């Protein structure tokens, strides 16, 4: 038996172990679950070492002498202070760097990528030569405004304002409905993939 065929059988065994959960929780599912956690943890760390820490830290710091990298080296070491409660506060220094950078990234990303460009994209002409375009632009503009008003909680949602915000909820419901439809599509595709593996690659019934 070649390693490839053995691999398919191993993969099929674990696939069935996980699927067995559909009947009820059982030993085979638990076994697969624990093996999965172990393998993925080991995989993750090995990859971080080989793909990130070696090329971006160890080699440049210890072989090429890029001494400035001593800073992330020390910050990384500080992370492990979390294992000792007395000095665990030291890990905050490393966390602070990450939190600061990711906060900065969020501000820039959401402001330039989402906020400005999305508002800009919705500034649509409400008078065009095509009836359909005018209609669509109107719905988009009206829908966006009503939804945004719905998110405005500083004023109580009643009376005329309440009516408009209710229309906003309707647009949001359409949006959630579409998302649900796409989620169903997504989940079914994933099952198709596994069924295709079982009946195709493993049993060889489907070509």
């Amino acid at each position: 038996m070649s390693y490839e065929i053995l691999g398919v059988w191993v993969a099929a065994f674990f696939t069935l172990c996980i699927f067995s959960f559909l009947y009820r929780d059982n030993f085979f599912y638990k076994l697969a679950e624990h093996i999965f956690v172990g393998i993925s943890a080991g995989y993750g760390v090995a990859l971080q070492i080989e793909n990130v820490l070696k090329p971006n830290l160890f080699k440049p710091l210890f072989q090429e002498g890029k001494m400035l990298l001593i800073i992330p080296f020390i910050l990384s070491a500080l992370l492990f202070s979390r294992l000792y409660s007395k000095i665990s506060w030291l890990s905050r220094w490393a966390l602070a760097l990450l939190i600061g950078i990711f906060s900065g990234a969020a501000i820039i990303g959401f402001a330039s990528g989402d906020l400005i460009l999305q508002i800009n994209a919705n500034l649509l002409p409400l008078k065009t030569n095509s009836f359909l375009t005018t209609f669509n632009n109107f719905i988009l503009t009206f829908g966006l405004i009503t939804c945004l008003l719905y998110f405005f909680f500083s004023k109580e949602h009643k009376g005329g304002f309440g009516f408009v915000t209710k229309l906003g909820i309707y647009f949001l419901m359409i949006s959630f409905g579409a998302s649900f439809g796409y989620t169903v599509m997504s989940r079914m595709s994933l099952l198709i993939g596994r069924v295709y593996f079982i009946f195709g690659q493993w049993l060889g019934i489907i070509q």
Partner: protein
Amino acid sequence: MQKFFEFINQLDRRIIFIFVALAIILPLLFPLNIKFTVTEPVRGFYEAIDKVPNGSKVLFACDFEPGSLPELYPMTYAALEQMLKKDLKIIALSLWPAGPPLVEKALTDMAQNEFKRKYGVDYVNLGFKEGREVVMVSMGSSIPNTFPQDYRGTKVSQIPIMQGVNNFKDVKLIVNISAGYPGTKEWVQQVQARYNIGLVSGCTAVSAPEYYPYYQSKQLLGLLGGMKGAAEYEILVNRIGLGRRGMDAQSMAHVIIFLFILLGNLAYFSLKKKGT
């Protein structure tokens, strides 16, 4: 009828599971070959790659894991086919830890085995880098500094395809295959908006509705949503992959879900009317 609706109302979930399984298995065993056409966002994806001059360098960001393979692998293979047919030089990478081996396999299957292209000259797999959007911003300053070596451990300075590639200005297009975070949203926010570079996205169906605003605002030049998007794209690149093969099963599964929603509601309203 009353008894039937009571039965439906208390249906064991495992019976639903059996119907869902059958709706998927039967069409795969006995294909119906239902025809379908190509939608606009998918055409946009195809045309954006088509417009890139032959022989140019493109960034192929494959941000996914095995969990979304059935949706994203068909579009990965189809995108590789289109890019390789145009002789585009592919610089692949992944910001998801379990991505690189999957990218490597796709590149081996398509670039090496099917198109007989040379690793390092026509394509490269830069592997994985932790840091999500920070990696993207870092690549904007310097790709070689962010990825000092490829997935196989070769220094990027020794890889021919990477010569002259310093940042996003040196690639013509970013083709992103995205399973979530980090993915298309972050490429749009941190790279497309900042460096004004063309970006197309192939994503899971779950994320597709969220990306429609980006497609409408032209921040995305094209969008493939889930396996259906992949199937439409396979038509354009003239390829038969899991996307097209899975469409009958996808159709039947959706019909089953629809019928269950309908039955559930009929049972609910019928029993409510009778005060049960």
